[in-house]
């Protein structure tokens, strides 16, 4: 750290002139990357100045992750050159990129789930006592970084027991620990709560003040405008412009990204209350660590409504989702669905009764990465796609093509492995499958996370129409704005308990915020 302080001190007084004189730390020229059936990067030029926070925007499948993977040495470009700190570089593996001072926090986390946070941070790192693991030394260093940037994690916890937000903090520490000069964050905020996002932004700004360069990928225009210095927009594998943030606005960015005007706000009428579809009665359940995660949940979801579940991640949302789906054991209490006690039913039976779920964890529980797109689209209902005990591939393909078209899933063909889709398109695939099943109850956990503006608009509309058809949605989201916009009623979960259920009219972010942090509302 001592070294990086020096140039800082010298330039403190002259911020303006520094802006102008910042040298270029990274220059990517004419990058081409072709995958079977897709040109993911089609001659992209991308240049980043030292010390800036540079936003990288683009629709789902625009090629953002691919471009960064090329930079990070994960993918070999088919054409193009990369200059880092003025030198032409060729990274054959992430190891080379790390050595050069580049760190990347991936869209889908790259963590070993059975290892502790500490071991994940140290993965591949040579501590002073190498090959021994110098934990003492590492701990004190990490604590220093944690304090410096305000990024706290429990170092001795296994990743598998962590919320996504925590996992991301581990990822960021992993990069910072290696003294990176350039940090790539691939859609970091899509998994964060508003408060966590605020904290991340503070950390980013501190990094940039320390002379660190940050590339920040996002779909959220407001965030890009809030935190970046410059923004580059990708569309269909091409760079369509680099803008100075303070001279642009949401409208211009959206137009650049999509190529047309988009409207994000959605009309939602208050639904007429109907009978209860799912009732949880005094439900208790444990988390993976064997500790009580749900402590006597009472909650009703009515037909025709969207019930929003607000709360900071890690307060029992995941367990609640799993209890309803049937993958987690109920310790005490009952679940009544459509008048029937389903507490003891298995997952299959619940699916058949009409319970659908867009799980929080897309890759692990949402899909089968090595099956094709069309197979993934029938994952829950494959018996319906068979004739005399044999799979009916004609029907499966037709079904897939319909959904690909309807939900705008970008894929070269329904036959490619689902793993090759971009992050947002994996998300679309899961949503398409769950909505097309026509269930009675849809549990939607962070349904718009990772989607671009057009995708968000589409999914939100679908959720609203779905509920208006007399079905119910349990919307689990950390995006308060999304919850406020879509929900008829809003329940707030805190440490495994429902702290309150508010009608839409009486809810405001302040009240929800109080409940989310464990406070009580004063009766008026």
């Amino acid at each position, binding site marked *: 750290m001592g070294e990086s302080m020096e140039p800082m001190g010298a330039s403190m007084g002259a911020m303006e002139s520094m802006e102008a004189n910042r040298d270029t730390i990274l220059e990517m020229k004419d990058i081409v990357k072709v*995958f079977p059936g897709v040109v993911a990067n089609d001659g992209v030029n991308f240049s980043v100045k030292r010390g800036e926070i540079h936003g990288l925007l683009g629709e789902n499948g625009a090629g953002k992750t691919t471009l960064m993977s090329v930079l*990070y040495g*994960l*993918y*070999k470009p088919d054409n193009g050159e990369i200059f880092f700190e003025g030198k032409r570089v060729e990274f054959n*593996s*992430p*190891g*080379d*990129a*790390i*050595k050069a001072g580049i760190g*990347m926090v*991936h869209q*889908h986390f*790259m*963590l*070993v*789930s*059975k*290892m502790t946070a500490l*071991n*994940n941070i*140290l*993965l*591949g*790192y*040579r*501590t002073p006592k*190498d*090959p*021994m*693991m110098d934990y003492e030394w590492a701990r004190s260093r990490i604590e220093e970084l944690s304090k410096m940037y305000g990024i706290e994690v429990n170092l001795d916890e296994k990743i598998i027991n962590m919320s996504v937000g925590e996992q991301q903090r581990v990822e960021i520490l*992993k990069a910072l620990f290696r003294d990176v000069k350039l940090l790539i964050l691939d859609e970091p905020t899509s998994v964060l709560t508003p408060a966590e996002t605020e904290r991340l932004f503070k950390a980013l700004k501190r990094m940039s003040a320390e002379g660190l360069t940050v590339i920040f990928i996002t779909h959220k225009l407001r965030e890009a405008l809030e935190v970046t210095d410059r923004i580059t927009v990708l569309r269909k594998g091409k760079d369509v412009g680099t803008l100075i943030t303070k001279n642009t606005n949401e409208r211009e960015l959206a137009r650049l990204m999509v190529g047309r005007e988009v409207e994000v706000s959605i009309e939602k009428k208050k639904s007429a209350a109907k009978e209860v579809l799912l009732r949880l009665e005094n439900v208790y359940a444990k988390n993976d660590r064997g500790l009580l995660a749900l402590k006597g949940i009472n909650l009703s979801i009515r037909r025709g409504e969207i019930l929003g579940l607000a709360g900071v991640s890690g307060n029992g949302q995941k367990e609640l989702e799993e209890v309803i789906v049937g993958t987690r054991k109920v310790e005490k209490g009952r679940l009544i669905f459509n008048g029937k006690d389903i507490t003891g039913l298995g997952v299959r039976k619940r699916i058949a009764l009409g319970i659908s779920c867009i799980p929080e964890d897309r*890759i692990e529980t949402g899909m089968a*990465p090595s099956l094709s797109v069309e197979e993934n689209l029938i994952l829950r209902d494959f018996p319906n796609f068979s004739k005399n005990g044999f799979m009916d591939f004609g029907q499966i393909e037709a079904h897939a093509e319909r959904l690909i078209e309807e939900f705008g899933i970008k894929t070269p063909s329904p036959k490619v*492995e689902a*793993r*090759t889709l971009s992050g947002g398109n994996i998300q679309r695939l899961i949503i398409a499958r769950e909505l097309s099943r026509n269930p009675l109850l849809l549990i939607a956990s962070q349904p718009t996370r990772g989607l671009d503006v057009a995708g968000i608009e589409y999914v939100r509309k679908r959720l609203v129409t779905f509920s208006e058809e007399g079905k119910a949605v349990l919307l689990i989201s950390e995006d308060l704005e999304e919850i406020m916009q879509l929900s008829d009623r809003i329940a707030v979960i805190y440490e495994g308990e429902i702290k309150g259920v508010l009608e839409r009219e009486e809810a405001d972010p302040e009240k929800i915020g109080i409940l989310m942090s464990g406070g009580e509302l004063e009766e008026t």
Partner: protein
Amino acid sequence: MIEAEFIASLIAASMRAGTPLLFATLGEIIAERSGVLNLGLEGVMVTGAMTGFYVSLITGNPWLGILAGGIAGLLLALIHAFFTVSLKVDQAVTGLMLVLLGLGLTGFLGRDLVGKVATYLQPLNVPFLSTVPYLSEILKHDPLVYVGIFLVPLLWFLMNKTRYGMELFAVGENPEAADTMGIHVDKIRFLAVLIGGFLAGIGGAHLSLAYAKVWTDGLTAGRGWICLALVIFSGWMPQRAIFGAYLFGGLDVLSFKLQAIGFGVSYHFMRMIPYVFTILVLLFSVIKEKEKFGAPSALGKPYIREQKF
């Protein structure tokens, strides 16, 4: 005391009989921890056994034989590593091919070795111990038995306390995560498979040069397969492998010993015991381990970088 003597000699023999299993199991634990399954263990062991026997026969030096056995195992493992790690060929297929290759090759090349007497590994003479009753019996072994015992804490240490162990674990759990942290996935896997083959080869050589003290066609008699089960039984942990190996060694010995003291059950039935036990152990460990962290998550899956997840 006839019984105490019987038990002492049984324990001693279990350790000797368990040592080939221990070497091969430890080796396979390393390979599997990196994510590569070597179903060809039987072939690797038998090749080590024959090569070791042959080299000891012609040089008169059993240690050269042990080394040669290890190298032979390593060479077979090299084939496995090349196909599965470099060429990403299916691990099960390649492994089975190794079994056939090993058994066929040794059956053919070892024809003339059957019935020959090589120089065997001699037991260590520990000065003081030899005067203590029973204990002297229990602890009178060839040095390789002790090497095996010593390997257990060594591997435990390497796997749990060093960067090498962490990287090995990461590569077998989530190769993509390891790759993004600059760890060379294929290099580690390649090495792990080679080490696994080397240890299995030594195990085989111990079998022919210290335990069985003969060469016959198919000398390993399914021990390679038992070791694959032992890896599961041990939960991929070296410290548990030693118990499994000695236990199976004991069962093997027991079937002989009972025969010797005139236990009136068919020889063939007694020979079946280790295999039946293998099945029981597998059942048991599957049921018990279900909740815990068991097999390496990426076991059996080749890693190709541009293919996500």
